[in-house]
């Protein structure tokens, strides 16, 4: 599905990701985890072609990313950045419609099908009732859902989310995780950067653990998530116990 081939990404003369080869499973939820500054956001942006590879390449369905036209790529791959600038005066409906950008005509006219997809995306994220309100007037959780609706409207096989839970309270975080699982149920590949390790273990199928631009471990949470790993990667003394509800690994720091 999506993979990297000796990928190197640098800002100026500072190399963030060095010679990384990685293949992410199709139709699963993959979480990128690691301490601050380990390069997970950088990797995510490189996977979405926002950051240019200084060496190596990213492959989407075995095709190098740079061979895609802008719109063509945007029809297969979407990314929700961590920091979102909600423009002034834009209604939720409009915001979600922006998700159709890769499909619409030159003049920005939405077809009937486009409108239907937008409607559906708003229903799935439960923002239909706010459709005519401006996005900036919503609460943090509602606004985040509106943005997710935009990504859903983009209707891509691969969906990437950069720390989507950062400004949400716990109940909204869980809501968001469930949305991700709903996307997976529709056959999408979801790649997400997460800070909450327990959520990553519970809701994701595949973990990619990063440290200083390198992948330290990769695989199913049950196989990867160990006390030793937490010590090595996060310098965190913790006990890993089974999650009482999902039976996935769960860490308790001490």
């Amino acid at each position, binding site marked *: 599905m999506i993979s990297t081939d000796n990928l190197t990404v640098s800002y100026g003369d500072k190399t963030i990701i060095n010679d990384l080869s990685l293949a992410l499973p199709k139709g699963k939820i993959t979480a990128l985890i690691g301490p601050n500054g380990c390069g997970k956001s950088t990797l995510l*942006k490189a996977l*979405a*072609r*926002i950051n240019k590879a200084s060496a190596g390449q990213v492959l989407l369905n075995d095709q190098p990313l740079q061979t895609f036209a*802008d*719109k*063509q*790529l*945007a*029809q297969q*791959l*979407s*990314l*929700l*950045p961590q*920091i*979102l*600038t909600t*423009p*002034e*005066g*834009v209604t939720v409906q*409009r*915001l979600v419609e*922006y*998700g159709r*950008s*890769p499909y*619409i005509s*030159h*003049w*920005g006219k939405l077809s009937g099908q486009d409108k239907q997809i937008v409607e559906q995306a708003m229903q799935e994220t439960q923002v239909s009732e706010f459709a005519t309100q401006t996005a900036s007037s919503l609460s943090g959780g509602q606004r985040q859902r509106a943005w997710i609706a935009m990504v859903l409207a*983009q209707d891509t096989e691969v969906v*990437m989310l950069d720390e989507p839970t950062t400004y949400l309270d716990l109940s909204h975080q869980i809501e968001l995780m469930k949305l991700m699982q709903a996307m997976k149920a529709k056959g999408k590949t979801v790649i997400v950067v997460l800070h909450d390790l327990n959520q990553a273990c519970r809701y994701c199928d595949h973990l990619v653990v990063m440290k200083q631009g390198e992948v330290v471990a990769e695989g199913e949470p049950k196989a990867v998530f160990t006390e030793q790993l937490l010590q090595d990667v996060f310098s965190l003394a913790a006990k890993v116990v089974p999650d009482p509800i999902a039976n996935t690994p769960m860490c308790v720091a001490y």
Partner: protein
Amino acid sequence: MKHLTLSVLLLILLLIGIASLFVGASTLSAQQIIDTLLHSGEYDFIVNQYRLPRLLLAIGVGAGLGLSGSLIQGVIRNPLASPDLMGISAGAGLAATSLLVFYAAAPVYLLLLTALSGGLIAAAIILLIAYKTKPTPIRLALIGIAISTFLSSGIDFLIIVNPVEMNTAMVWLTGSLWGRNWTQVPIIWATLAVVLPFAFWLAWRLDVMGLGEDCATSLGIRPSKLQLIALLTAVILASISVAVAGTIAFIGLLAPHLARMLFGHDHKLLIPASALLGALMLIIADTLARGLQPPLELPAGVLTSLIGAPYFIFLLQRYKAW
């Protein structure tokens, strides 16, 4: 609702346009004007050769400046950005003045090309500085104003040291529609006709750019390409406007602001509305310029800065992101 407002504006434009045909040194009756428009006659010169082309020019140039301003503000996301505050108008003006000073009989196409290259160079300079120093919006405005000042002193310099050629350049430069005739009308209207589709093509994409560069990229829009096209369009519009009517200040700043107040942030409405409001402003300014103390003519550019400067101050009072 918003489309209604747009239609009302169009109607006002039409009415003021018709009214402007009555304003000038000689007073004509409605009957006389209609007669002249339909089958020329006694007042052919005043109406058909003088007031009518001026009206069409005012609409074209005003629309061009308004459009240019809305595109620049759409790209740079800076409420103080506009072709005149960023030195584009002054660049086009300086280039065109130099041409007129050294080659007074220059053909029209050469004047257009020169003005255009002047505008492009000025835009390139300020963008280069902006790219190198990553200034805050306000600081960018300040740099633009300084470059403008520099270029306009260049214009003053050329005009003063070449008093013989001065009249041509002076008439052309003060930002006035005086002394223009039918020759300039097709220039500005053709430019508008070519550029308008581009502007509408940009509308949706500029909206999406408002979500931030990363978001726009992931939605299939390449920010650098879009910015380049939008700025190029804006510079072309501003430069051709300057080539036709000289530097008319503040329309490029004001029209998009008023449009945003009336129509919100949707570029599909903002773009036509800015053009419409720009045209409206220039017609009013030009009619006043002609009618305040006939037969004397004020440059329309002076009137627009009398209206524009207070608005600029008002803008400063409201601007929060210091």
